[in-house]
């Protein structure tokens, strides 16, 4: 039989093969070359070695297959067919190794590698012995070969590694240790399994049916596989596709302009192209470097933001611990102080017999000190409750004028003792809806402060109704507040400088607590002062 075959150019170009072959093979070769380029990038988690081996084996396989399709030389067909049978199991082995490396973050152990090599060894031994490709099939003009037992052994190996990969996929879905990376790992393994499976089926069908054209559709899984990998890389590798795109664009422009220099015949066009080329070089360089710089800066900012968020979380945790400690400590301190205060009052009142004259002053100091300490502890407890969100407000309707009157009555002896006039102006009952206990605490605190920081003169408390609010104004003729301190006065642990000079025992928490309590009742509090030595006005407003 005489067959008329076209003579192949460069081993792979002829009319012997179907045009489909060039589309399927050359596209796949380009994709795998691009994937090989991918492995040159600085990717964090990519198992490069095994992946490169798989890509190279696949490229060699595709090239050899193109030779088989295009070539008319019997010896070339036999030689390259043997190479295909040698390379084919390598694709499966390398794909399996790369998946294992990706999944378990480890390379195959030395024993596993030698075991795999032992499995491949029969293929190596059989190839030169003529058990892989037995001879040339000249019964038709299809340029096929007669395959030997090694080819079938290859199919067994390939099926074995696909099966092992499927087992690994099952383990990803079952074991908890993969839970955090399950989606990513499944995508990698499914993409690779799909590639190998379609490749195996296509080759198997080709061998048994002799229809090698249809079997080329097996390579359709290559772009799908590449798409899987590209998706995973961009999504999970913090990989910036913009850099690659800009680099590609600049290189393409560079090549285009350079090639035009050699193609153009018209001098003016050559000059124009040379000029464009000269301009393009610095511009392209600037574009590439600026994009890289921008991406780098953005990544650094993202990293800083992540660090800041983490530090903020830790600070919040510490703050919470501090509040809890404060709460526990102040509770522990309050109980014995209450006992001291109670017994001191009993002794002072003569419950345990007449108190000698010389003990009156010490007893008074004990009572006053414990009162101050209890107040401070109460402030700490309030802060702790406010910061932990445990402060509860039991709101009810009450007359603010009446509460102000009671506060004045309680503190009048203190003011009188200091020689201060304490007056109340409340012309009408004004009902407000708030927590009566907490509002009384606030008013007591503000009037008490006014007494403390007023050396001479008077303190006037006015209660009046202003549209939809009840306003309580405490005006004193005391030390006053500097303008630059007014804004900070209601902050935690803040005291006015003048206040420090008059009274050194304050904690700087009273006004902070007062503000929180008033705002918790839907009201507001602020301070006004004409300056140092000119007194101050504390105003509390509550909704009517």
């Amino acid at each position, binding site marked *: *039989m005489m067959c008329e075959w076209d003579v192949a150019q460069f081993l792979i170009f002829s009319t012997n093969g179907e045009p489909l072959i060039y589309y399927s093979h050359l596209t796949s070769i380009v994709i795998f070359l691009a994937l090989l380029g991918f492995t040159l990038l600085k990717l964090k988690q990519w198992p490069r070695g095994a992946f490169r081996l798989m890509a190279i084996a696949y490229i060699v396989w595709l090239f050899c297959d193109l030779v088989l399709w295009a070539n008319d030389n019997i010896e070339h067909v*036999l030689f390259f067919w043997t190479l295909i049978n040698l390379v084919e199991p390598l694709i499966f082995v390398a794909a399996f190794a790369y998946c294992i490396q990706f999944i378990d973050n480890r390379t195959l152990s030395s024993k596993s590698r030698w075991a795999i090599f032992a499995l491949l060894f029969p293929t*190596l031994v059989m190839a*030169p012995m003529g058990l892989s490709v*037995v*001879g040339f*099939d000249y*019964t038709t003009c299809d340029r096929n070969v*007669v395959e*030997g037992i090694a080819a079938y052994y290859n199919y067994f190996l390939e099926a074995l590694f696909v099966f092992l990969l499927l087992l690994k996929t099952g383990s990803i879905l079952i074991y908890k240790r993969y839970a955090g990376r399950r989606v990513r790992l499944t995508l990698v393994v499914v993409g690779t399994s799909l590639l190998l499976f379609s490749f195996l089926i296509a080759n198997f069908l080709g061998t048994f049916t002799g229809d090698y054209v249809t079997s080329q559709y097996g390579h359709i899984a290559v772009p799908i596989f590449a798409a899987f990998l590209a998706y995973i890389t961009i999504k999970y590798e913090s990989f910036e596709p913009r850099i690659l795109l800009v680099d590609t664009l600049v290189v393409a422009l560079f090549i285009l302009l350079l090639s035009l220099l050699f193609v153009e015949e018209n001098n003016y066009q050559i000059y124009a192209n040379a000029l464009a080329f000269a301009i393009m070089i610095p511009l392209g360089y600037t574009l590439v470097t600026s994009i890289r710089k921008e991406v780098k800066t953005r990544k650094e900012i993202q990293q800083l933001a992540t660090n800041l968020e983490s530090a903020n979380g830790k600070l919040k945790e510490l703050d919470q611990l501090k509040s809890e400690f404060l709460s526990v400590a102040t509770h522990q301190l309050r109980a014995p102080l209450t006992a001291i205060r109670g017994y001191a009052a009993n002794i002072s009142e003569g419950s345990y017999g007449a108190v000698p004259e010389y003990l009156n002053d010490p007893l008074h100091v004990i009572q006053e000190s414990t009162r101050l300490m209890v107040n401070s502890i109460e402030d700490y407890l309030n802060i702790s409750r406010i910061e932990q969100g445990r402060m509860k407000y039991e709101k009810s309707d009450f007359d603010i004028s009446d509460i102000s009157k009671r506060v004045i009555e309680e503190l009048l002896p203190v003011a009188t003792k200091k020689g201060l006039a304490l007056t109340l102006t409340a012309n009408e009952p004004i009902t407000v809806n708030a927590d009566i206990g907490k509002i009384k605490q606030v008013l007591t605190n503000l009037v008490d402060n006014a007494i403390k920081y007023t050396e001479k003169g008077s303190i006037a408390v006015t209660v009046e109704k202003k549209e939809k609010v009840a306003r309580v104004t405490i005006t004193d003729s005391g030390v006053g507040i500097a303008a630059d301190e007014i804004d900070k006065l209601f902050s935690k642990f803040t005291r006015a400088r003048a206040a420090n000079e008059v009274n050194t025992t304050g904690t700087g928490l009273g006004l902070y607590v007062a503000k929180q309590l008033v705002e918790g009742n839907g009201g507001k509090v602020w301070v006004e002062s004409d300056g140092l030595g000119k007194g101050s006005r504390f105003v509390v407003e509550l909704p009517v």
Partner: protein
Amino acid sequence: MYILKAFSNYASMPQQKGNKLFWGVAITCYALVVLATYFRMYVYHAYPIYYTEDEIPDAAGEIWTAISELGL
């Protein structure tokens, strides 16, 4: 005995050295096989050409026969 000794020496090798040995052996084997195949095809032309169906050995058939003889 020598083989066992060689394997025990291999097991105690540092990983880097073990890797090199593995790749050295694997690449050498593949290179030798490709070279031998080249010689078979291009130098010795030691391959049959089958012009009729009857001449072609049935590798798949042989495997099935072997398997059925083994009773598998």
